[in-house]
């Protein structure tokens, strides 16, 4: 499944300072669809190069990270249970506090 993943607000530093990643995530045997839960563990294994604790806490993102699926807060689509579709755009953004 082709997806576009974007990292912002400093999270890109965890994946070699690359903000946009066009990726191909395959379904494993017996999987009917790709959930955000699976995608997070895929990202952690395949994209995060350093300090994974800055991205995840337990099986979800750490506090202070907003997850957007097609420009929409994942809270509105079921969080970890959100089902992804071909060509979806998923944005991980750390909240900023500076001024």
């Amino acid at each position, binding site marked *: 499944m082709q997806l576009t993943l974007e990292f912002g607000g*400093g999270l890109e530093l965890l994946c070699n300072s690359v903000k946009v990643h066009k990726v191909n995530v395959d379904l494993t045997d017996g999987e009917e669809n790709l959930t955000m839960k699976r995608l997070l563990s895929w990202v952690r294994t395949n994209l995060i190069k350093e300090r994974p*604790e*800055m991205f995840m806490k337990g099986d979800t993102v750490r506090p202070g990270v907003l997850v957007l699926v097609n420009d929409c807060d994942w*809270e509105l689509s079921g969080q970890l249970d959100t089902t992804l579709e071909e060509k979806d755009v998923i944005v991980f953004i750390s*909240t900023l506090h*500076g001024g």
Partner: protein
Amino acid sequence: MASHSEEPSTILEEIKALKAQKIDIDARISALESQLRDTSIAKQLPCNGSCPSISTVDSNLSNNRLPSDAIYRYSRHLLLPSFGVQGQSNLLKSSMLVVGAGGLGSPALLYLAACGVGRIGIVDHDVVELNNMHRQVIHTEAYIGKSKVESAAAACRSINSTIEVIEYREALRTSNALEIFSKYDLIIDATDNVPSRYMINDCCVVLKKPLVSGAALGLEGQLTVYNYKGGPCYRCLFPAPPPMTACQRCADSGVLGVVPGVIGTLQALEAIKIASDVGEPLSGRMLIFDALSGRIRVVKIRGQSPQCEACGEKSAFTPEKFRDFDYEKFTQFSLSTLNLISEDSRISCKEYNEKISNGEAHVLIDVRPAHHFDIISLPNSLNIPLSSLDSRLSEVSAALKEEEARKGVTGACIYTVCRRGNDSQRAVDLLHKHGFNSARTL
């Protein structure tokens, strides 16, 4: 002819002198009015949190008839069909509090003063520094070393002498926030740290005030409106604070000056929309600005959360609870320096200087990021950023061997240095764990 040409110039001079006097008198009148207003507000409101409306003070505005000087000054606003007399009149009656007169607060304040917000409050405890000037555009060099609030207020008054500007040269705390916030219709969060953001949000929830929240760091910015007409608050979105290590500050990570400029200006826009009751404020949505790619995306965020600790159904966030809440503890935020390693693993700059004079064999490792090292560095220092130290330990061993061979000795020491003295301690800790027991931090 000579006597005729003299006459108009005398008249012009007199007009000029009178106008100057008029400005002084107007300023004095506005100061006295604000003094009067403050004392009458203090009498009316012993300590409860209701907001005095400017319209009760200024009857001129209550029927939406603008004075002629206001019609001239704001004519380009009045000509806008979707804004007009009603929008401007609402604005003149409104009051706003800007918390933070820094990178975000500077442009926000300039526009709010210029557009005629009736009363503007400014809170900040900081003083103007030279390294603020590239982004905090409301301040001028003449104010370096002086209070940011004093500087910003003077700039606002010089742009628009008809508005009221109230100065709070103090840090925002749970002990003063309720009283200050209660005097304003809406709050603009232009601060730069996590505990302040939670404190400002909770105070706005307790007092039911809309909050225009902006943030900027590096080359990115974020903007949204909280607590507005049933929309989410900051805690709905971020119930748990982020880990301290995820909270970078402009003073450490840098910021391109114009980025907070863009976000601060957009904060003024959202505040003006809310106060004038025009357009759709950015509630339930967030604007995300990426300066490098030149992209602005507006995303839909969750609505108000019934489980929210601040604004949810079962929330018990009362003024009393707010006053007792420890925001620094909640966010584990501390500006004090790290104390990771023991005293005998440290060395003072003076001691280090002596070692250099004595020609003592050593390796100095600068653990700052490479682009910091490029700004300035100590002679003969080796740059290995902390983030890659773990994987570059062989370079440390090699540097030690080389130094020992060069000086014809054994047992050369390792010293580490960084910007604030925190990362260099972490580096020493890491080096000790890998058997480099001679490592000490500067």
